[in-house]
């Protein structure tokens, strides 16, 4: 096991967790406010369309969530499934990249 890598991943998990703390509070408050009366595409697009601040916020949110989620799943896979080594790192790197791509596509759809 590469200890330096493990320390870096632990730190990245904690730092992205701190950033996500702020992002998730904003996201939770927004969801609880907007859910009343149901959601519609027009209503969502009205708030997000051409809004560069929304794009920036959700861009950072997506990358932080992708990183935090992938590192968290890696830890669970190691401890629960006893799956370790390069194959696990590769699978979770692909998962991280997939989340980033899907997240950016979603932001493009909502903002542009």
């Amino acid at each position: 096991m590469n200890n330096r890598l493990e320390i870096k991943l632990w730190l990245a998990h904690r730092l992205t967790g701190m950033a996500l703390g702020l992002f998730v509070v904003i996201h939770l408050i927004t969801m609880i406010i907007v859910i009343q009366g149901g959601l519609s595409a027009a209503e969502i697009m009205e708030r997000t369309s051409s809004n560069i601040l929304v794009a920036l916020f959700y861009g950072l949110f997506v990358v932080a969530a992708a990183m935090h989620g992938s590192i968290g799943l890696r830890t669970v896979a190691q401890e629960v499934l006893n799956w370790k080594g390069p194959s696990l790192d590769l699978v979770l790197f692909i998962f991280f990249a997939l989340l980033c791509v899907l997240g950016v596509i979603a932001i493009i759809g909502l903002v542009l």
Partner: protein
Amino acid sequence: MNKNRDKKEYWASFIQRWSGVVLALFLPVHFWVLSLALQGGDVLDGFLHWTDIPIVKFAEAGLVGLLAVHLLGGVRILVIEFFRWAEWQSHLVVVAGGGAFACGLLFLLRAF
């Protein structure tokens, strides 16, 4: 091990881990749904209409509760790891559980 299961900290750790796994695996689906906006408002509306079904609203409230419990449980972990231990920190498990339940319930009440 069985003795540990009598402690609320064991269940806090259990819920933190598995809520994280569920949320990480939900992310690709969430991003895919939002990216439907790229295919036009009608396509996204078609999906959003499906979310009006009561059982889906309950599932959404469950996800909001999981997100809130992972957030509050994460704050608890950061406080324990980065600050000197104090007795009040032992109550953060109850704060996380109660706060998450309140968030899920508030979302559900506003969704109907």
